């Protein structure tokens, strides 16, 4: 099982962030490090709730933060339920940050994101 933080969006898919990459979550106004990465803007989706907190990610270059909504759902996904994106999407700017998608028959699908890749700004 993979522990994830689920960010509800206004689109058709929600975002599932790998929880193991997030060291701690703090209020946005308590964060004094580099400008937080706007996860939703980077992925071109609109969060269902305002982003008022940041998740702190440890990288080789120091701590980085990603903006997160005020209310997060914690969940678990079976590893086998995460399907890799086909190579047709390899030109997406965030190809390396998107680990895959869930393909539920019912309910909202999840786009599974590795936040450390976003925080490093890598493709």
């Amino acid at each position, binding site marked *: 099982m993979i522990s994830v933080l689920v960010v509800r969006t206004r689109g058709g898919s929600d975002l599932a962030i790998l929880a193991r990459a997030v060291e701690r979550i703090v209020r946005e106004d308590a964060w004094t490090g580099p400008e937080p990465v706007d996860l939703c803007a980077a*992925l071109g989706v609109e969060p269902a709730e305002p982003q008022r907190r940041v998740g702190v990610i440890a990288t080789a270059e120091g701590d980085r933060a990603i903006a997160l909504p005020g209310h997060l759902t914690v969940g678990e996904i079976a590893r086998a339920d995460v399907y890799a994106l086909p190579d047709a999407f390899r030109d997406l700017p965030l190809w390396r940050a998107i680990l895959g998608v869930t393909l539920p028959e019912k309910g909202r699908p999840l786009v599974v994101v590795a936040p450390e890749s976003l925080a490093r700004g890598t493709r």
Partner: protein
Amino acid sequence: MNGATSAAPLAETTSVLPMRIAGDLCAVPAMAVEEVLGMRRIIAIPSAPAHLPGVVAWRGRAVAVLDLGALLGRGRLAADAPADRMVIIAVADGALAVPAEAVEAVVAVPAARAARVASHRFASSEVEVGGRVMPLLDLTLVAQAILGRGGA
């Protein structure tokens, strides 16, 4: 007698699957068609280009959806009005799911005309099905356009 047969050579035929995409008829080689599915839910991929709006689940994997109408600039698939059919097409080492408004039965037709079809970016020939002439999609051209190579 030189031994040559006097019988006329059999007309070369090819099997194609006609379908309607963005209001236009086109055909794909039947050999490339893996399966024709009913309406399928498309799972949107954030920041994906208009012609690759998402994926569908097929045989235990995620297959990229190719919106051919969007690729040809003839209007994109409406998110709230999914296509009635989803045609799974083998492309090199992968597969693409192509939404279609309608799919007809596979039919054997005389071999494609050699002349290039000037009106269609992804057809190098055309076929006649029931008196209707339509472009025969060249899947290599399609794959090259979206991937820069022959796979998906």
